[in-house]
């Protein structure tokens, strides 16, 4: 069944010097009779953009929840740079450099857009408790940097004019963009995006792609789950296809687009609006 | 014409509000009577009433407010902890406090000689009542084993301890002592146990509502044991229970009973019934006598000066409606008479009015 997945691992030239940044093996999670993730193997190379596609309900989001610690009922191994992060608390995993967005958008409704963006960085700016309380010079310095970066990012995603407004009053797509900006505020090792451009205007999708490419060039690794095939194919170095909780195929975008099984299981009728 | 200001601190809201309400009836009645006869020092008495919610900190606030308002003296507080909290306040300000209901022994310990000379207590302590109760119980000869049920407050604990001690002295065995939280509504469990413990009597130290629940459930569960301890039969619920025979064979020593057959008491009861449609309760009686004792002291002092009134209070000699004469001892504690009653069927008989000391 998963011969391609298995042989794929064998065929690939081993890179002994650089183990994958994120390595997931035999990941499982079931809910009653539903085996949402059913022995998933996944590797994300450092510095890559890896796309992940698959039909609705095939277990993509569940897998992300397992990797990032939000789902406590998973089994299997999850390694970041060779070290296990399975069963760690989500905030520790985030601090370790694995950050994710949520498919069902989450922003802090009662905070301003700028604050929302700034919050993405506050656990990573190296300040300790006393700095903000005593408003030390170091704190002011960091605040200035955070603000500058937040403003720049908001500008890029088209929210520059909205920075003073409450995040709760944004439109759906704007919230999505805000969540994305927030997660990009710090410099995580790997960013996992769960449908970052669903509901985003096509023109903006191009700009997001540009932004991600730029950040990737600067060293950030991405794992992107998306149903926008064009976006995934254009951006990814490798694409992993999931089906029924496991890996159905993986390869370069070109390879995937030729794969019969993928066309049948996912894209539907071989075209799927490509 | 200026009035003589008397302050009242009473629990008018909160868990023991009914006590405060009845105390106010007695207080108001006494003040009306005195004013009708020309008041004290030729001036009417004016009451300033404040709600202390039976809460010590509110009690302090109230005491301060009353003192501020220029009262000559303060009556009440009713709850022991409220009295205890107000004591240092009145001492500092030099205002007499007359308390007729709070039972905590530490009030007496702290009052009078070597302590706080501004606090006076009229009611007998539960210890004295318990001794009288047990003595009478022993004299009946039929009760050898008793169980104690008391609320877990200073009132309940103090009463239970006093009763146990008195029982021991008389060779009556205490088979069990149960404390329950104030406001407990269900006693079926305790009653189940007591019903099987062989106790011939159950001594109660409970707030009226809890006692009524207890007695009603005891009756329904068919637990056969006479009731004793600190009981009274006033108030609608208890009157009904009494009428239904739920208190049959009960014996109690209590600071007051409306059945006491003195002219003064009969008149007092009649007045209250006329005014409120309800017979007098202990708190009304206490409120009434608090006012009279205080008014007499002001009259004797000849001036509404607080220190003079305090001095006059120490020399109190007041003829209580129960028949005794109230005087204060070194600790400013009066030893009023108390009442032993028993119930046969639904009929309350005052067996004895005895002096406490």
């Amino acid at each position, binding site marked *: 069944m998963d011969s391609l997945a298995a042989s794929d691992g064998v065929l690939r030239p081993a890179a002994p010097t650089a183990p994958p940044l994120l390595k997931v093996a035999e990941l499982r999670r079931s809910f009653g009779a539903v085996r949402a993730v059913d022995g998933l193997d996944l590797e994300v190379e450092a510095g890559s953009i890896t796309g992940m596609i698959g039909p609705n309900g095939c277990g993509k989001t569940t897998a992300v929840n397992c990797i*990032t610690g*939000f789902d406590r009922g998973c089994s299997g191994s999850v390694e970041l740079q060779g070290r296990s992060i399975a069963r760690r*608390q*989500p*905030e*520790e995993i*985030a*601090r370790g450099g694995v*950050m*994710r967005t*949520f498919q069902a958008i*989450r922003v*802090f*409704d009662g*905070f301003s857009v700028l*604050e929302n963006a700034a*919050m*993405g960085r506050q*656990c*990573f700016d190296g300040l300790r408790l006393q700095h*903000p*309380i005593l408003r030390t010079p170091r704190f002011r310095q960091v605040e200035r940097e955070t603000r500058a970066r937040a403003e720049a990012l908001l500008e890029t995603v088209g929210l520059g004019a909205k920075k*003073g*407004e*409450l995040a*709760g*009053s944004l439109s759906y797509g704007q919230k999505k963009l805000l969540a994305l900006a*927030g*997660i990009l505020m*710090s410099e995580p090792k790997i960013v996992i995006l769960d449908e970052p451009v669903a509901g985003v205007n096509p023109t903006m999708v191009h700009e997001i792609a540009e932004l991600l490419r730029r950040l990737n060039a600067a060293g950030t690794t991405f794992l992107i789950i998306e149903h926008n095939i064009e976006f995934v194919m254009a951006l990814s170095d490798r694409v992993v296809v999931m089906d029924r909780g496991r890996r159905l195929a993986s390869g370069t975008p070109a390879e995937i687009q030729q794969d019969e099984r993928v066309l049948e299981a996912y894209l539907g009728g071989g075209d799927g609006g490509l | 014409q200026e009035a003589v200001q008397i302050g009242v601190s009473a629990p*008018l*809201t909160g868990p023991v509000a009914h006590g405060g309400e009845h105390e106010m009836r007695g207080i108001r009645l006494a003040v009306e009577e005195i004013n009708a006869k020309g008041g004290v020092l030729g001036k009417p008495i004016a009451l300033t*009433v*404040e*709600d202390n919610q039976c*809460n*010590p*900190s509110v009690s*302090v*606030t109230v005491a*301060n*407010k009353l*003192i*501020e*308002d220029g009262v000559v003296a303060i009556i009440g507080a009713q709850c*022991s*902890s409220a009295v*205890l*909290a107000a*004591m*240092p306040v009145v001492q500092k*300000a030099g205002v007499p406090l007359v308390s007729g209901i709070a039972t*905590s022994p*530490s009030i007496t310990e*702290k009052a009078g000689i070597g302590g706080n000379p501004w606090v006076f207590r009229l009611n007998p302590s539960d210890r004295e009542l318990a001794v009288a109760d047990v003595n009478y119980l022993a004299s009946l000869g039929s009760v050898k084993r008793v169980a104690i049920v008391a609320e*877990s*407050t*200073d009132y309940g*604990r103090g009463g239970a301890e006093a009763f146990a001690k008195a029982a021991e002295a008389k060779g009556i065995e205490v088979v069990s002592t149960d*404390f329950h939280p104030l406001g407990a509504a269900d006693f079926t469990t305790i009653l189940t146990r007591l019903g099987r413990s062989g106790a011939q009597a159950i001594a109660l130290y409970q707030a009226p509502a809890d006692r009524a629940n207890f007695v009603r459930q005891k009756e329904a569960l068919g637990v056969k044991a006479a009731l004793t301890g600190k009981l009274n039969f006033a108030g609608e619920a208890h009157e009904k229970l009494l009428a239904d025979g739920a208190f049959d064979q009960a014996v109690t020593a209590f600071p007051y009973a409306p059945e006491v057959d003195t002219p003064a008491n009969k008149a007092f009861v009649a007045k209250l019934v006329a005014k409120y449609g309800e017979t007098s309760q202990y708190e009304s009686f206490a409120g009434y006598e608090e006012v009279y004792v205080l008014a007499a002291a002001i009259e004797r002092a000849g001036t509404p000066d607080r220190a003079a009134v305090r001095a006059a209070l120490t020399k109190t000699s007041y003829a209580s409606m129960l028949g005794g004469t109230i005087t204060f001892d070194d600790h400013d504690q009066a030893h009023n008479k108390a009442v032993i009653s028993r119930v046969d069927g639904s009929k309350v008989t005052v067996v004895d009015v005895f002096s406490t000391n």
Partner: protein
Amino acid sequence: MPPAMRSPKGLLLLLLAVLALAYPFASSSGYHLNVLTNALFFTVLAMSLNVIYGYAGLLSFAQVGFWGVGGYVGALTVTRLGGSVWDGMLAAGAVALLLAIAISAVSLRLSNHAFVIVSIAFTLLLQLLAQEWIDVTNGPMGIPGLPAPEIVLGPLYFAFDDRTSQYFLALAFAAATLAAIGLVLSSRVGRTLRMLKHDETLARSLGVRTTRWKVFAAGFAAVVAAMAGALYVFYLSIVDPTIFDVYYTQLMLVIVIVGGLGSFWPMIAAGFVLVVLPEVLRTSDEVRMIYYGVVLIAGVLFFPRGFAGLLAARRRRHSSGGRLGQPGSI
């Protein structure tokens, strides 16, 4: 010009300080001072609830528990261990901190509703303990006759044993604690706590150690409440189990909600209004509690978002933006 006077807010603050300091000299009423002193204590207590509820979003009925524990630990430190009142306050803070950490360990994973129940159960357990552990707490009678706080500095001696000095002591305590809380909450720490309240999952995904922050909020709030409780019992000169009364919880909650969850100055204003209000209503004797209830109901009807909401609404009218709620709601 001193910096405090440069902004209108600073000026207001200065005015307030002058008023607070001058008040005892302007009025000779011990009763009024007593009410004001109470207002100081309850404002601090309410502010401690604001830390954990208004900011971190955990409705804790344990605050009154800590307040009571503070009272008892303070009293026992003085009566049993022979410490000074200040030792009592420190001990109160320390014990409360330990208790807060312990209770946090069990309760912080709970849903918000479950947390409420646990915090109530915790307080009621403490009350039971105060009531029933008679050997230590003296049971329902409480521990009366607590000494007044005093300062002994070599030959210098000062006792806070009259209304005015006690008022100043309470004022100093309130100013210090409120300033500390204000400093912490107005900084990024306050924002972090509010993140927990708004969306804990999102906060965790951004790396916020939510458990640690909740413990921080619980501990901070507990220490403040306990120290206030300790000072309060020396002010009253008695501690007894009614210090755990729901009355205090209700008062705190009402202050925090009327002030506006997570607000600072409006909450302080609410603290004063709501402590003074029942006293003002005393003129009407038995029905005063009914008036009080009616005032609460009217409060909800006319200021549904508390004092803070009132201010915010006024500010909004002058600027645009900000989110307005959707019409109607269940």
